[in-house]
């Protein structure tokens, strides 16, 4: 997991760099929550450039972080999800609350 905080726009980029399953989700969650509570961003952006696999543990992970950012009054977005990851995202219905953005639209 890499993260980058854009101070000017108050956006936290969370770049996941491993396969997301139940085994890995716990660790990713801890790092993400740490970063979110540290920066208190207006928006979090999940960057999936380096994710080659995700199962339903990833959906649980995203919903949990969405709840946290909502508590802080912010929003969440997804960028760079490949075809395989998008299939799981679409099926879960999660895109209604965490939409996929084209990278150029991301502030």
């Amino acid at each position: 997991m890499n993260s980058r905080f854009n101070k000017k726009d108050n956006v936290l980029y969370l770049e996941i760099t491993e396969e997301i399953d139940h085994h890995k989700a716990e660790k990713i969650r801890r790092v993400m929550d740490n970063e979110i509570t540290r920066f208190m961003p207006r928006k979090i952006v999940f960057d999936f450039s380096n994710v080659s696999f995700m199962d339903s543990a990833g959906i649980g992970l995203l919903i949990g972080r969405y709840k946290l950012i909502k508590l802080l009054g912010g929003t969440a977005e997804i960028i760079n999800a490949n075809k395989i990851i998008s299939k799981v995202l679409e099926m879960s219905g999660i895109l209604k609350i965490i939409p996929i953005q084209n990278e150029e639209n991301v502030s």
Partner: protein
Amino acid sequence: MKSRYDNEMELEFLSKSNNEAFARITVAAFAAQLDPTIEELADIKTAVSEAVTNCIIHGYENTEGLIKIKATLLKNEIEIEISDNGKGIENIELARKPLYTTKGNLERSGMGFTIMESFMDEVEIHSVVDIGTKVIMKKKIKKQENAEENEEENALIN
């Protein structure tokens, strides 16, 4: 012994969460013999990951037990049987429902069976409380247009 399948394999491992990746990668490597597309292979990996995670979290509730996978190939179809000797499912119909989870506190999404059902062609669940659960999933691999060419090419090379 003559198998009624074209190929078959069995795998047994402890219900440790770091075996989730091991299980899905191993089954995918076996399924690769059917010459699936990257997307079909991803479907199989995801479904196996869901079933194995269920054994670990629900079947054994994070205690140690054995998970067994049997996979068979027949023509263009793979059948994958994943079983545990865990606590079993009380209400299978309820467990299959999208978003239903008994482990909401663990941030489980309740999408496991829904994903298995939509990524595989058939999913059967057999379960007896306190005896265990067995999930049988089947998927047909579509024949790719260039598969025949590949065969010819392989024949030439060999």
